[in-house]
């Protein structure tokens, strides 16, 4: 057993709150110290918001769980000060191979065009991801940032009020009451917060079971994603093999619906399945085995007054496409700057309603993609299987069929088309940077663009004039003046100008484009700033 599971990362310690004569009020309480909760807490603490994280456990999550972290997640983690160890530890991969029956039908390369600081994907066990985030929390604490994690603090009851939330928290030394101006629930797909508040969680259940096994083995399989449809070692079902750090391999085997889960999980049943897949001679050790079923569903609203849901507590998808943890980090990325502005009084409370609009848009996109992948991977009727197999057969011989093969559409960040925070597009520029888009990275000599856009509103000018700062409604927007000459690879021009001579972009603190024009126009940009903070 891996030691990391055993060791408390945030052991229970008595808090002065437990001895306070009246309940202590915090600015923000986050429930859940998984990747999403920790991201929320770090983001807020970096902005000087006082935050307490409560978790009913005191260790990293058990088993590898989420393993595929996308480029956008790494860009967000970079802003949160913890991307470096993740990238250093993670396994980078670009090649995916698709097998059908006993043969490889095609392979794809994820490597995007050059000019990004971070790889398209890394594979990293969730426990490492969490560990690096907890280390970041500790570093922030050492700098005096107002952030705290309380292990073995289980929220038992929640009272919601107009201007605060009250929590009953159970600890090894009894319960206490604590209050917060704002509550962020990052307590997972089975969210106790959601249950305690009696809120909905509706969607589609997929009647299938998957065996997930992480094995430790010395094997010479390359660092690629291998996906099988109907392989000889798992007839009529699918299989996945993916490499993680420390010689841990993720194996996913579809089992079908009518199975005895407890029986299938026993090593004497798991091991023969794995040997059939990996070969009789391969030596391996089981690190973690689990059987899961999944659903594609979301809450009707993610904001309920002063309670905000983020990550799996708000929306759940199938694992195909790595859209769980990756979308959870996009949630907190979207939420935290808004919450900071509302707390400061810079923006109206209604700015938080745009969190609902934008992230429900994101969740629906993820659910759609993940549902379609699932329908392809696990056909639900005879004809859908016939069509699926036809696609796979054709993909071996003809390029045209390959885009139809769907073994998971891998997570890409959501563009908030139609968001109330966007201003109308006023640049004849590339589609990938239209208002609502996450800013694509670009190299600037030895540096990259995104770190220069982090955590504040920025006026990005490329070969265009503009004031050095704009003050509007309490928001200070500083200019970042660039030229296409700053990037010899021309990625900056390709991604932000296209055929335009110059451009001015208003970029939000979460690095999404709020507005863009071919030149600076004072009224238009002041209007765009007001709009982006919910004041129009």
């Amino acid at each position, binding site marked *: 057993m891996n030691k990391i599971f055993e060791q408390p990362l945030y052991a229970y310690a008595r808090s002065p709150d437990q001895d306070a004569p009246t309940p202590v009020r915090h600015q923000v309480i986050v429930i859940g110290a998984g990747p999403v909760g920790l991201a929320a807490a770090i983001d807020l603490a970096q902005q000087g918001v006082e935050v307490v994280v409560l978790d009913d456990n005191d260790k990293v999550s058990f088993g590898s769980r989420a393993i595929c972290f996308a480029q956008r997640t790494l860009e967000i983690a970079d802003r949160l000060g913890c991307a470096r160890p993740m990238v250093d530890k993670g396994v980078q991969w670009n090649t995916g191979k698709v097998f059908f029956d006993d043969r490889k039908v095609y392979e794809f390369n994820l490597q995007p065009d050059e000019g990004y600081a971070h790889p398209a994907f890394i594979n990293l066990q969730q426990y490492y991801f969490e560990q690096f985030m907890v280390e970041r929390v500790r570093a922030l604490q050492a700098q005096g940032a107002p952030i705290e994690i309380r292990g073995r603090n289980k929220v038992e009851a929640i009272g919601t009020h107009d201007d605060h939330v009250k929590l009953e928290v159970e600890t090894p030394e009894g319960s206490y009451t604590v209050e917060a101006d704002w509550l962020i629930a990052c307590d997972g797909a089975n969210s106790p917060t959601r249950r305690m508040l009696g809120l909905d969680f509706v969607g589609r259940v997929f009647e299938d079971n998957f065996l997930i096994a992480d094995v430790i083995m010395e094997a010479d399989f390359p660092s690629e994603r291998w996906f099988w449809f109907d392989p000889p070692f798992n007839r009529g079902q699918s299989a996945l093999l993916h490499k993680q750090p420390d010689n841990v391999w993720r194996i996913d085997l579809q089992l079908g619906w009518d199975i005895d889960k407890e029986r299938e999980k026993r090593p004497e049943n798991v091991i023969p399945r794995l040997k059939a897949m990996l070969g009789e001679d391969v030596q391996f050790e089981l690190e973690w085995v689990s059987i899961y079923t999944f659903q594609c569903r979301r809450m009707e609203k993610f904001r309920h007054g002063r309670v905000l849901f983020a990550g799996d507590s708000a929306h759940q998808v199938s694992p195909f496409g790595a859209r769980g943890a990756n979308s959870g980090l996009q949630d907190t990325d979207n939420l935290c700057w808004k919450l900071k502005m509302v707390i400061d009084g810079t923006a109206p409370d209604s700015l938080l309603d745009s969190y609902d609009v934008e992230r429900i848009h994101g969740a629906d996109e993820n659910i759609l993609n993940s549902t379609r992948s699932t329908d392809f991977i696990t056909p639900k009727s005879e004809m859908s299987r016939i069509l699926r197999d036809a696609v796979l057969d*054709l993909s071996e011989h003809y390029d045209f069929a390959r885009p139809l093969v769907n073994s998971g559409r891998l997570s890409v960040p959501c563009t908030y088309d139609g968001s109330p925070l966007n201003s109308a597009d006023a640049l004849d520029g590339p589609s990938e940077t239209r208002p609502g888009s996450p800013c694509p990275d670009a190299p600037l000599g030895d540096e990259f663009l995104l770190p220069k856009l982090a955590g504040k509103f920025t006026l990005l000018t490329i070969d265009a004039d503009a004031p050095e700062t704009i003050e509007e409604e309490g928001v200070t927007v500083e200019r970042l003046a660039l030229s296409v000459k700053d990037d010899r690879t021309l990625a900056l021009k390709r991604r932000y100008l296209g055929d335009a001579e110059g451009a001015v972009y208003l970029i939000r603190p979460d690095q999404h484009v709020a507005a863009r024009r071919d030149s600076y126009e004072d009224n238009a940009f002041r209007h765009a700033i007001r709009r982006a903070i919910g004041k129009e």
Partner: protein
Amino acid sequence: MDELILTPNIDGADDFYADLLAAHDGLDKAESDALNARLVLVLANHIGDRAILKQAIDAAKAR
């Protein structure tokens, strides 16, 4: 917008139909189903235009 062609458009319709039947000669039901599925996908890709494909699906469903 382009319209799905629903008037006679194949020269030698009988020959085409014979070719289609011949392609299924000697196949069992599962093999024939698979052939039809591959054929639909090949033809759909050739058409390419999503609006036309949607009209084709609708036309095939209306009986």
